[in-house]
């Protein structure tokens, strides 16, 4: 296995939030003790529902936000302090793509200028070389120089996301964080962008952290998938195996909730209760109020993420090693 490019060690992030103008401040544990390793050239998929902390994890990994505790290591070294020259150099090696490409682009600038901007900021190459690089980048995302002269408003959603991708690739990054990059796109366009992302990753040897709520897309692109629930990783394992044989009751519900053509809803696990509120996290295992298999112990003790065989790790009191296939 290739050496890790990104190592996330036990990071936590807590926000304080008031309910109402005069309400008492409540602590929101957005991310709570998350550890991840992403080997060079591989993709880690992060799935979970809204409020599970997957986007916050992505922001911390990129250094856009400091963790309250824990550490992120990039290429074997700890992340440098923001604002320094070393930090700027490091930031050029890691980029981010968001869900809404129109929000990420400036509507009043031609898109080629925006693709060029990171090159200007990081002072890479001569002006002529920058022009060439922009043309290459447009070609890499399967667009023409004519597209580059347009404004974001004159491009379709899929084309805009390609522009965002081209801009992210301008500084030749090693690492990309993609936060719901195809969720706003129609199915046929989504497939174009997913294929493009896979091709570029293979060509450029990119390492990806791919955040999405869409299990299908995550499986398509990831080597390893981590499932988050209320700020914690509840299950992690290789993509195909995880979705074929989910062990954690929450992953099982998620997989069974994903509708599939040709399969009627018979036998689907429908979880009771609402999506969890990160400001009022239940005691013990955060999932226990919605868990169909919860026992008394689940209400008291937080289960630790532990290996259950293969490269799978599960945080559940009911899943321990070999004798766990009963629920399937």
């Amino acid at each position, binding site marked *: 296995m290739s050496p890790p490019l990104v190592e996330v060690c036990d990071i936590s992030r807590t926000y304080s939030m008031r309910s109402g103008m005069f309400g008492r401040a409540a602590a929101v544990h957005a991310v709570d003790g998350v550890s991840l390793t992403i080997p060079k050239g591989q993709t880690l998929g992060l799935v979970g*529902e809204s409020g599970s902390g997957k986007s916050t994890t992505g922001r911390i990994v990129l250094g856009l936000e400091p963790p309250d505790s824990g550490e992120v290591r990039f290429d074997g070294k700890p992340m440098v302090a923001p604002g320094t020259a070393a930090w700027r150099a490091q930031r050029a090696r890691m980029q981010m793509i968001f869900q809404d490409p129109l929000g990420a682009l400036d509507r009043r600038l031609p898109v080629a200028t925006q693709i060029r901007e990171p090159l200007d900021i990081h002072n890479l190459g001569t002006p002529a070389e920058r022009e060439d690089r922009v043309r290459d980048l447009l070609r890499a995302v399967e667009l023409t120089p004519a597209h580059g002269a347009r404004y974001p408003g004159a491009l379709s959603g899929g084309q805009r996301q390609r522009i965002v991708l081209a801009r992210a690739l301008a500084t030749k990054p090693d690492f990309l964080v993609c936060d719901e990059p195809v969720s706003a796109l*129609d199915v046929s366009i989504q497939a174009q962008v997913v294929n493009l992302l*896979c091709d570029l990753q293979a060509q450029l040897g990119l390492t990806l952290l791919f955040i999405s709520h869409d299990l299908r897309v995550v*499986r398509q692109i990831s080597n390893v998938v981590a499932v988050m629930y209320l700020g914690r990783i509840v299950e992690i394992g290789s993509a195909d195996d995880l979705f*074929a044989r989910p062990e954690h009751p929450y992953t099982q519900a998620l997989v069974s*909730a994903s*509708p599939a*053509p040709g399969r009627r809803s018979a036998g689907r696990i*429908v979880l009771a209760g609402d999506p969890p509120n990160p400001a009022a996290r239940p005691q013990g295992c955060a999932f226990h109020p919605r868990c169909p298999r919860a026992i008394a112990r689940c209400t008291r003790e937080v289960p630790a993420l532990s290996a259950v065989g293969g490269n799978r790790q599960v945080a559940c009191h009911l899943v321990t090693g070999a004798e766990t296939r009963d629920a399937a």
Partner: protein
Amino acid sequence: MTPLVNIQGLSVAFNGVPVLRGVDIALGKGEALGLVGESGSGKSVTWLAALGLLPRHAKVTGSVRLDGREILGAPAGELDRVRGGRVAMIFQDPASALNPVLTIRKQLSEALVLHRDLQGNAVKAEARRLLDLVGIPDAGRRLEAYPHEFSGGQVQRIMIAMALAGNPDVLIADEPTTALDATIQAQILELMSSVRREFGMAMVLISHDLGVVAENCDRVAVMYAGRIVEQAPSNQLFADPVHPYAQGLIGALPPLDGPRRRLTAIPGTVPDPAMMPDGCAFAPRCALASDSCSLAAPTLAPIADQRTVACIRAEASRRTLLGIAAE
């Protein structure tokens, strides 16, 4: 048997630009029909037009019959009894469909008074029964709450309760679960199918999510650029799509199990309604297109029992599909 809703030749143009170009849909009593297609294909506009909910500058032609009675261009008074009464609609963004400054009880009562002629305590009792029915815990007390006090999934439950207030024969659900998380989506779909069974309601489920439609509908119509391009029973459509666009949509969906394959993306984008290509609107993106495709727009023609497809290359596309399956 006459269909409950019969739409024929429905066309809509905004400022002279056609967005819906002759749609025929027949919906039987108690039937669940799915409508899939990408953004701009006209799946929502079809039902907004049918119920007279489009702005005045939209030019709507064709025929929409409810139980044999023409409702397209019907007087406002008659439409008011149809909408919310016989035909109810729920939308993607439930939070903006509720009034934030009125309690849930007020909003539910409004629908009950309008469509059910209930008075006084009977209204409150019925409102409470509806909330119970859609699975809001502690319904009696929660009636006095405001929309912001509910979660997204609960608000969609309340919208379903309001839709049921008029005892509708048809429920039109336009992307009802798109804004919801996966586990909550499963809850809402389960609720919709259980109330549908209980009330014997017909349902039209509009969605871009093929999986959602496949699991919850008896029959599916695939729309592209303002037309229906294929119509079939769900299981047949997903097992054996005939129209190249339907094949493309299904091929573009990443599988959740089995071996990973490269996604078959449909090249290009949906045509601009103002610059619609001649002939078949899908031809410029179609791998099977021939010269004759750009001559005339193909009409929906039956290819098997209960199946229609609008493609002159339907036979060729079928052979390609079988070829792929044989590999």
